[in-house]
């Protein structure tokens, strides 16, 4: 495990508020120092937050939906098996949580339904700290994610527009998540990525915080109070494409070339429970 990992976010927060220390902390982050005094987060100015306090459909001033099986009808380029809808069976806000639920049902020719929310055109930002508190589903074939996509993908075809995966997870490995960056020359199976494993715990039994802190020339990845990876232009084998606004996506995919299909042990429905999504600026 990376030595950057072990650090308490809570102990460090106080330090961040003292301007005299701010410079030092930033220097440490940007120089990828593996010192034990590494801070996990620095950005404290809250610019967007959905705490999911309003029952019903997700707040339409933040969230819009991708519907169907992708622009080419091919399971979003991954042979995913679900049909995305915005029905309450697949997405709703209840008791202070956003629930994204994958169902096993015949729908529009698909065997599964689920939902994919995005802030495209509603909230887009260059740099910042993007964080969500999530309890994940489980079972073979479940592929939930909390991620960012460059807002110019319509004209600047993926992966040139950039993708930052804050959290991806496969339901048959409930102790492991991974964070990745995709760009030209380093996308899909070649993306710059790193796993983070829980010890004596799993991601489907309780809430965990998944976040990145993203600035010029770096993306830091953290889970709870552990900073587990930093990606910089030196790490990627192509052009650095993370200096323009990105928007947020949250989804639960089912099946496809990456997670494989659900098997007889996969239990449906499966729900990704989101407590909050917050975005900070420096």
């Amino acid at each position: 495990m990376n030595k950057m990992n072990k650090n308490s976010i809570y102990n460090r927060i106080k330090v961040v508020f003292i301007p005299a220390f701010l410079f030092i902390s930033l220097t440490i982050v940007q120089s990828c120092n593996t010192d034990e005094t590494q801070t996990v987060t620095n950005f404290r100015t809250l610019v967007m937050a959905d705490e999911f306090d309003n029952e019903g459909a997700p707040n339409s001033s933040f969230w819009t939906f991708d519907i169907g099986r992708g622009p080419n009808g091919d399971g979003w380029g991954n042979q995913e098996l679900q049909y995305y809808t915005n029905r309450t069976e697949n997405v709703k806000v209840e008791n202070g949580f956003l629930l994204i639920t994958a169902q096993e049902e015949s729908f529009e020719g698909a065997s599964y339904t689920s939902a994919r929310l995005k802030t495209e055109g509603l909230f887009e930002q260059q740099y910042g700290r993007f964080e969500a508190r999530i309890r994940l589903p489980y079972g073979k074939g479940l592929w939930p994610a909390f991620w960012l996509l460059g807002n110019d993908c319509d004209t600047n075809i993926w992966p040139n527009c950039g993708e930052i995966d804050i959290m991806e997870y496969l339901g048959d490995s409930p102790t492991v998540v991974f964070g990745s960056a995709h760009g030209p020359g380093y996308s899909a199976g070649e993306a710059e990525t790193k796993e983070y494993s829980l010890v004596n715990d799993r991601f489907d039994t309780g809430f965990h915080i998944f976040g990145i802190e993203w600035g010029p020339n770096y993306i830091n990845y953290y889970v709870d109070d552990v900073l587990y990876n930093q990606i910089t232009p030196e790490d990627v084998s192509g052009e650095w494409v993370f200096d323009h606004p990105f928007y947020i996506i949250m989804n639960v995919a089912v099946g496809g070339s990456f997670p494989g299909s659900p098997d007889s042990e996969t239990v449906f429905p499966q729900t990704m429970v989101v407590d909050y999504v917050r975005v900070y600026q420096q």
Partner: protein
Amino acid sequence: MDKNGKLERTYILTLENNTIKMKNIKHLNFKSLFLILVFMTMISCERELSNEAEFATFSKAGEIFTDNFVGLGTNFFFPFISDGAKADVFSVDEDVAYESSASIRIDVPNANDPGGSFAGAIFIIDGSGRNLTEFDALTFWAKATQGVPNITMGFGESKFQVARNDISFSTNWVKYIIPIPDASKLTEEKGMLFFSAGTANTDGFGYTFWLDEIKFEKLGTIAQAQPAMLNGVDVVQDAFIDIPIQLTGLSQTLNAAGQNITVTGAPSYFDFKSTDIDVARANELGLVSVVGTGEATISATLANVAAKGSLALNVIGSFDFAPKPPERNANDVISVFSDAYTNIAVDYFNGFFAPFQTTLGGAPPLDVNGDAVINYKDLNFVGIGTFQDVPSINTTEMTHLHIDIKVNESIDTGDFITIQLLNSVGNNETSGEVRFEADTFTTDEWVSLDIPLADFGLADRSQIGLLFFISDATISDIFVDNIYYYK
């Protein structure tokens, strides 16, 4: 009171210190022990329970075997001898170990070993039990001299026994996990580990396996419980007052870091519920008492998770058993199906002859509180076979065939049941039959048929291979009992 309180505290300290000393110095002589006891009794007499007194709590230790047994006492190995297990299969091996210097070695005997046909035993703490409520699994490392599937291992002395039946040993060290169905039940458990390993999958040849680093652990990665009763099936059946039903197929499936593991769990892990306790109710041992007429459904939860599967009972009344046959000399009877005599082997009680047979039931017969009864339903015809894998029946010396039949429905004119015998099935086969008309039978009453074998008109009845009940669907629901030939 203040003074008393202080005194009490002093006394407790003394007691604790002495306990510790006594443990450490085993050869403490009895004279001084006696003096100490007398002293303690003197200063403690007439006192009430102090505020500081604490009730006994059980050890929360998880380790069972590391380099040696941990806290199991002296007499802790109990082979399953009454089940045919070999007694001396166990040793501590100081040459083989997963970690450090020693492991448990089990030598599984050959199937024909006169000392016992398999290795099976339980390790029970010689002393007080342990509190396992903070763990979520029993784990151990194991390897064997050859790959062997279907080893059973588990823990729990009786009431809270847990078994995992699908353990496959390989020739390298592998860590195995036996999840605890509900640890909150294990406040005082003595059965730390049991194993049952035979040679069904090794052609009867013995092998050796080793176990190491055996301990209860809090893995934190055990979750997503899927308990089940009756193997997860929603069973619907008739039941009878005072005929209890044992719930079976009780299991807990838990996901261990991505891998589903199913263990069988004792009934006491489950909480059973009845929709009508005036009809049927289940106790903590999974025994359903049938107490009244009506309908009731038994369901279960395990640690507040609903178990898949249920038992829906339709209770009409008390069970009406067939009349008990008279005692006979063993040479005078060939019994096919009766609790009164020793039965011969049969191929089946329902041959399910496709495509024309509709008859259900008899596979297997009902077990009514230990008394076997066949209930044929949707009867058109059905055969009891004795010609495939078992010897045919030589009835030459017998004079009669006895059958008890109870018709569980209204009987109409024209209804009938024909009894047919086939001799030498498939090889110059001959058959004969005797037909019983509607007036032979009375709804819901047992009728005993004693049919002279001569009435079947068979020239040869030395190789009876099939006995048919034929109603052509005129009568569809019957109980059958006490099928035997006699003289």
